[in-house]
């Protein structure tokens, strides 16, 4: 849980820095900016999801490296 939350918030902070508010024009296509934003956001969230889904595999790998026995729930994944 922790890696995902902190990863998301860090990414959000970076996006916030890039997207600081400016005055709007009267006539813009509201969908285009959203699509560009989504493209960047989905990269971030896709990576977060991948890390979350593979955290058990990473934990197993780290335990093996350290020569520790497998955690009880590792066998379930």
């Amino acid at each position, binding site marked *: 849980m922790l890696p995902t939350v902190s990863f*998301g918030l860090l990414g959000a902070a970076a996006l916030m820095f890039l997207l600081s508010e400016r005055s709007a024009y009267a006539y813009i296509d509201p969908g285009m900016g*959203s*699509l560009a934003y989504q493209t960047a956001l*989905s990269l971030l969230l896709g990576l977060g*999801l991948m890390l979350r889904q593979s955290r058990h595999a990473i934990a197993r790998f780290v335990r093996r490296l350290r020569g520790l026995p497998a955690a009880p729930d590792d066998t379930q994944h």
Partner: protein
Amino acid sequence: MQSGLYAPLVADGDLLPHDEMEPGTIRPERIPMVSYPYEWCFSQLRDAALLTLRVQRRAMAFGMSLKDASAYNVQFRCGRPVFIDTLSFEPRRPGPWLAYRQFCEHFYAPLLLWSLGDARLARLGQSFLDGVPLDLASTLLPKGSWLRAGPLLHVHLHAAAAARLARRTGARPQVAASGRGIEGLLDSLDRAVAATRWAPDSSWTKYYGADCSYDGDALAQKVEAVTAWIQQVGPTAVWDLGANTGLFSAIAARDAALVVAFDADPACVERMYRDARSSRLPLLPLVMDLGAPSPAIGWANEERMTLEQRGPSALVLALALVHHLAIGNNVPLPAIAAYLARLARRLIIEFVPKSDSMVQQMLAGRDDVFPDYTQEQFEQAFDAHFIIDARQTVGASGRVLFLMTLR
């Protein structure tokens, strides 16, 4: 249908079934009562949002995608949301999910305004039929929402990006969002929507509780009389106007195929929906202020129907309602009778006299300018449209129940 998506969605009750009349022509199963997102309570909108995400995730597994994520693509059937727009599915193309902004504007932003802002902001949905603009939602949400991942990513930064990046980009982004990226986006939206909460509480949710103006015997008598009349009428569909927390709607739902329970208080409707969802009663609760019922809106005022256009109902219950319209909203009794005659074929209605404590509360601090608010005038007004089949006084309360038939 060739994608293989139709069958599992229908089997799970997530998609409205249809018959294929001829190639390219389908006839969907009929929804007995159409409702609109601006008539839903918080949990109905939340369940509809989760359904839309579930359908999109399922569609992606079959190489398909939703090209829009309008809240109007969802209706309620048998107490749960169902996706109705079969034509929203298209083969998935590489790139972003085109419906992302619409999902945020139709579902997530309204849910956040409701849960973190003020429940009365739900009324914005009736003005913004294509969803609450994200820049407006971002302005209306409390500052603390910037510290939460869901609102920050999907509303605040999204709104800022839509305004800023639109000026830089002349064409659709060429960088294709991967399937994994869209899965991450859906997963994030799913968790953000699931994290929204709203605790319903208002004085009206206690109407039949400790603050009730009935004593126990009077309420029991009322329940007994209404139950007997509902069984006598044997309606297939019932509309309960001013349903409060649905005491009588639930009774009607034992016999009717569908009960639509209306109340102006979103907290009452929320209670009813949660109860109906757990008890699996054929009950559809909707937020409706009968002082200003849903109008005909949308293009040429023809896209969304009025309440009246969705009727008439075989039986209408109007219990402890007339005094709110007559005294609370200053609607003359003949006008109330004329409107109910357009909604109902049979009517179970309660007259609450001025001596009742609830009416006394309404009159407190104002001049009594309602000399015509008497049982005699009430019966005269309704006699113009209905035949009075039966009447019964409710204990010592002075309230009177009537069973009527449209002339």
